[in-house]
């Protein structure tokens, strides 16, 4: 829940977490409680990309959040740029390379999404 007057953040459609990190697993449990769908990785996520994200982002560049290594984020960010998406939030958690992040449509494409109702 947003505190005080803080505006509510849009809910991600998917939460990607690296199952090797207890902190990431804990965040995934919170995401479940918020009704967010989960996808787990162990760093390499070619299959997740191929089976879900690639096609999904082509149809509708939605909001995705995650708790992964910065290496995974780097690749996701690079792929997201192709779909006019950007990293909108990034927080380093601890010193073991775990990063909590959010990816979403770039501003101008957020606007065009509204128009198309996508």
């Amino acid at each position, binding site marked *: 829940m947003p505190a005080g007057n803080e505006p509510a953040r849009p809910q991600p459609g998917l939460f990607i977490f690296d199952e090797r990190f207890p902190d990431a697993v804990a965040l995934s449990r919170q995401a479940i409680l918020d009704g967010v769908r989960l996808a787990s990785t162990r760093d*390499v996520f070619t299959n997740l990309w191929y089976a879900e994200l*690639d096609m999904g982002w082509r149809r509708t560049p939605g909001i995705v959040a995650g708790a992964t290594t910065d*290496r995974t984020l*780097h690749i996701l960010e*690079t*792929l997201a740029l*192709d779909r006019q998406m*950007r*990293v909108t939030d990034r927080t380093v958690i601890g010193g073991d390379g775990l990063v909590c992040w959010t990816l979403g449509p770039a501003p*101008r494409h957020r606007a065009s999404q509204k128009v198309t109702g996508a």
Partner: protein
Amino acid sequence: MATRPPGVSEQDFQRALTEFREAVGDDWVFSSDEDLHAYRDHFSYIKDQPNELIPSAAVGPQEVEQVQAIVRTANRYRIPLYAISTGKNFAYGGPSPNVRGSVTVDLKRMNRVLEVDASRNFALVEPGVSYIDLYRYIQERGLKVWIDTPDPGWGSPIGNALDHGIGYTMGFYRDHFGAHCGMEVVLPNGELMRTGMGALPASKSWHEYRHGYGPDPSGLFGQGSFGIVTKMGFRLMPQPEHWRNGLVTVPRRRDFIALVDRVNYMTDLSIIGEPWYGSPLQQLLGNTEFREAALAFNEEEMDRLAAAAGLHSFQVELQFYGSERTTLANWEYAQELISRVVPGARFTDGESLPVPLTHEQIHETTGPYPTNMRRNITQGVPGIGVWYQTGRTEQNPNSWNETHIGLFSLVGRSGEAVFQAQRDFADIATRVGMPSTFPNAIQTGVNWYQFSFLMGNGFALGGAATPEGKQRATVMLRRILEENAKLGYGDYRAPPILQDDVANQYSFNDHALRRFNETLKNAIDPNGILSPGRAGIWPAAYGNLRGSLRG
């Protein structure tokens, strides 16, 4: 960060942007810092420096006619353009242009697979199609053809082929430019041209006979600045029924010469796919005695220590495509051929699997012997995992490798040539003040290109995290390129900051090749608008920028 094309007034630049918007729509012309972030080379040695090669804008056409309109506008206002397909040529500059302030022509919206023929074995694609896209198209239709993918496979067949990229299956297909067949190009004046049989309007064999009639200019578009390729045909490998691999090791250092000779023989008879060379002696790098012997190229001592450790000196992993019986016959034949010339060679059976491999088989990392071979790419299955080796972006700054530059020199495809290169590269590293700490004596060539080896110089660019460190490293790389060239080693590909340096080494007869290319460039592109400076080819309009990145 905002910049403008060199020599273009703000008024003309804005007019050009307006015309670009009229051509492609408001949503597909980008000029804000946030949007242009996607078009920076995040691995560049000059990132965040005043001379960083950033574009002034980017424009994303979806149709060939839009590309033509963009080129005509660029001519009108003398705007330098830099075309990219998916912009993932990382290690070689990524999406960044050669001239700061160029307008990037981002072709990723031209992403149609136009045809795949699984009987005649070819594909016709647009530049925004990635290897992953093409693979998906083939899989969804159950077609029995393979792509030959680089690693990672998020780039495009057209972009990769045009920069002379490589893959990992059978020899012919590994040379991605060599395996192209026919292209469509928007020329610098906005005209549309087709090469090969595509020049014959009613042709039915555009992707089967590449030469057409008369001189074939296709090569000008590889690492070139003579046009924007909007369609390209590629030969595809028919899906084999079976895949098998096996490991060969040879005991003594000098056995490598005969090993390479026999592997070449099998490669050029199309018996084997890409051979993966290596050295089991990597296991001895922690042994001070061995390390010193290897750094000194003391071959007798290396052989003695290898034998004492029960290790062989070199290895090659072979892969066979065909039926179960033919792959077995070819593996047995390989053993016979090598045994004839290398006493004591050892052979270890690898996997023997029907194709297509299952998901689990493709991602299986254990096997009868340790291997560095990434199985997916031997099966033409694109992945993105290898990119974990590196990474740094604006939002993701905690890099484990500060920069990432690819430099590989062409080396003759023989054991002797590899041994000579090992010594030459070690000597060069010492001469430029960075003596190698990794024993070059156990480095092998990579056989990405069927008819040659590529080898890296093998040195560590430590301390490249700061701008000063990057500058020092760049100076070092330039010295290495110069020293390499003196001994006959030239690079096949380079990032923009080193393209002038590499091109400068190809200097036979007072740079006759470069002068020829620039004569053509000035005739075909008199305003010099298409990728000026690419591969060291500077049109007269931008000739003052040659070498400008050397500082």
